[in-house]
């Protein structure tokens, strides 16, 4: 048994700890048992491979990591659900084809992913933190016998910061018949980040602050320049809104009408005679009645179609205070022209044919709905507007 390392402390160095090297699993297991019995707390074993029973011999408690993962998993799950509730069902209500504003099945995939994301990231980073990472360097690396701890030797290291650390410690280790005992001296500045690295980190952090600073700047200043397009998507394609002018076509309109002779296949009513059913007009005058049988089913259908197609702008009660309107007011209050209040006399007095025409062809900045709503359903909406709203 050879003993290396200086015992005396100099002014420049302090003792970091003491190492004992063993050449068998049994040796380190026995040593670990003894060190545990003596009541040491700040010590560790370094082995080239996982040694069965070492955790028990060292008296290592079960990690608390699972509890952290559990709590954060639940947090991710409820956070995911809360996020979807707030964005889809509370702050800006999505109404899509008559589905409920808030429905759990649609939210489960996101909640599931968030649970896993939170749990996995917590497991990964908590494991780092609990193990004292990130740590670039340990004074143990300087010990001569430590080089074989990743190869064929088993090393037990007791930290000098342990309350029981002293001359007794060396005697204890000697009694365990190790190959070698080695003292490790740690320089006083040990553990400090080098100045050069600090500088580099500072520069990197400053650079990292630039993008958020630029975003904050853009958020609170006004500019006449178009906004920066990082992801252009299809924002700048050449499109026209309903009722806009266009130089491209001879009639000056952006919206196109079906070419002459086109007729809808949904119904064979338009064979010559019932032009009013399709246009709302007969001989240049608006129809004064609905050209269909008004049944309870027809009225129900009108209410349902109104809910699906119209209520997003005109609101369910026809007041014109629909979700799109409310949101548009928040975003561009000055330029936005709100939807018409459908309950006013000006609307109520219009002939059914005129209302039908407005839905079919659009009016002011409301686009045409003839491609989305079949004619019979448009009449059902007219019926609903006239009689029930």
């Amino acid at each position: 048994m050879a003993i290396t390392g200086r015992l005396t402390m100099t002014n420049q160095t302090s003792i970091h700890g003491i190492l004992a090297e063993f050449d068998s699993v049994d040796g380190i297991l026995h040593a670990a048992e003894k060190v545990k019995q003596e009541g040491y707390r700040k010590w560790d074993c370094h082995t080239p491979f996982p040694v069965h029973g070492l955790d028990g011999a060292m008296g290592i408690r079960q990690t608390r990591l699972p509890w952290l993962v559990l709590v954060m998993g639940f947090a991710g799950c409820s956070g995911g659900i809360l996020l979807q509730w707030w964005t889809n069902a509370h702050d800006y209500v999505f109404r899509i084809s008559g589905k409920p504003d808030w429905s759990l099945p649609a939210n489960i995939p996101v909640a599931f992913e968030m649970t896993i994301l939170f749990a996995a990231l917590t497991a990964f980073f908590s494991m780092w933190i609990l193990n004292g990472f990130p740590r670039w360097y340990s004074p143990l690396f300087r010990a001569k016998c430590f080089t074989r701890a990743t190869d064929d030797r088993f090393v037990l290291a007791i930290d000098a910061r342990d309350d029981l650390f002293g001359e007794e410690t060396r005697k204890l280790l000697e009694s365990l018949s190790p190959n070698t005992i080695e003292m490790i001296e740690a320089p006083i500045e040990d553990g400090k980040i080098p100045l050069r690295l600090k500088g580099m980190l500072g520069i990197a952090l400053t650079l990292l602050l630039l993008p958020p600073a630029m975003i904050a700047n853009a958020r609170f200043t006004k500019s006449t320049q178009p906004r920066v397009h990082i992801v252009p998507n299809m924002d700048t394609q050449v499109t026209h809104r309903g009722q806009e002018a266009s130089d491209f076509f001879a009639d000056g309109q952006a919206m196109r009408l079906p070419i002459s002779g086109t007729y809808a296949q949904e119904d064979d009513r338009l064979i010559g005679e019932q032009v009013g059913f399709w246009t709302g007009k007969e001989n240049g005058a608006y129809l004064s009645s609905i050209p269909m049988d008004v049944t309870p089913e027809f009225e129900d259908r009108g209410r349902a179609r109104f809910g699906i197609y119209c209520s997003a702008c005109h609101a369910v009660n026809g007041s014109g205070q629909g979700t799109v309107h409310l949101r548009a007011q928040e975003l561009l209050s000055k330029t936005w022209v709100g939807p018409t209040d459908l309950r006013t006399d000006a609307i109520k007095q219009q002939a059914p044919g005129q209302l039908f025409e407005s839905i079919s062809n659009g009016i002011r900045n409301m686009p045409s709905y003839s491609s989305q709503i079949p004619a019979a359903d448009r009449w059902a909406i007219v019926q609903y507007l006239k009689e029930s709203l």
Partner: protein
Amino acid sequence: MNHTAPTYSADFATAAASRLSRAGFLCGVVGLAVAIGLGLAEGDHMRHFWLSYLIAFAFVLTLGVGGLFFVLIQHITGAKWSVTVRRQAEFAIGTIPFLAFLALPLLVPLFSHEGVEEFGGLLWSWVHPHGDHAALITSKVPFLNVNFFVGRFVGYFLIWSLMARYFKNASIEQDKTGEHELTVRMRTRSALCLIVLALTYSFAAFDLLMSTDPAWFSTIFGVYLFGASFLAIHCFLVLSTLYYQRQGHLKKMVTIEHYHDLGKLMLAFTIFWAYIAFSQYMLYWYGNIPEETAWYLIRITSPWTNWSWIEPIGHFFIPFLGILSRHIKRKPPLLGFWAFYILVVHYIDLYWLVAPNLYPDTVPFNGVEVFALIGVVGLFLWKYGQQAKQHSLLAHRDPLISDCLAFQNY
């Protein structure tokens, strides 16, 4: 390092297996007799009894074929942890030829002319297409007809029985010869067998259970049943191991670590089952296409609503939270409780898959189901016990057994 591997001795549990076998036989005969009696008393052409029998049969089929999946997966992955419990799964797959015999009574509702006018077939309404979907179902007749149906099941059971025979016998042969080559050969062959098994089991799931509503289809149905089966076999192995340990066997050979591993796979496949079940539900919910949602509509409307709630809560949330903690997985009696619980909800799941198709307006569940299940599971245990009577409970000369016993969970 060069050292001689420790040797392990065979573990014959003849007495314990005989007891299990006898009790199973008794339960089987009494259970089925009572179920038939109760079924006859209902005077519905035995339709209710056949439903109960079908579900009970599907239940033991998930254990038998689930065992085959288990054995194949252990071989293809070269799994070391499972060597000491694998023999019990090999006994389970040894029952597959007997399961084919248990399937024979189902020919009665298939060929019976009783109730055909009323229901279109006692269990499978495609036997005699009628009602609103007659035209749709008639278009499926090239696949769904009685002869091809029977032919397919002959094929499935032939393939499964051959696989089961090979893997069981090879493992038992190793008990005698200790030949390492057998392990290598089983590993090589397990790859192709797994592909064939996955395909045949998927189609068997379509045929046996999904076609009770011939208008409905779900391509994930086979995966759903696989998930349920793989979950069930792990639960079964926990209970079986607990039984043999109580009887004084496998004492040192199955440790807390093995229970822990079985528990981890129970947890994993509880989640996998929920993942598949929810995937199917959510796509249909989103698509909202009448021909697909009809299947769920009868399940989420009265009187099946409450049964349907058992699925997400009883089959996922409760067992998920129940076996999440490692402390529970490492306490065999507690894990045994959860294994039993999961097998109960597994039965409810199978029942929920089929019964509403035949009885959309009532929940027919009563003593017939209970006694049919006791009967069929009893007969399964009878055969299971007979296998265990003849062979060692432990694949004691498997080359991986030392690794299996050295393994520890952290």
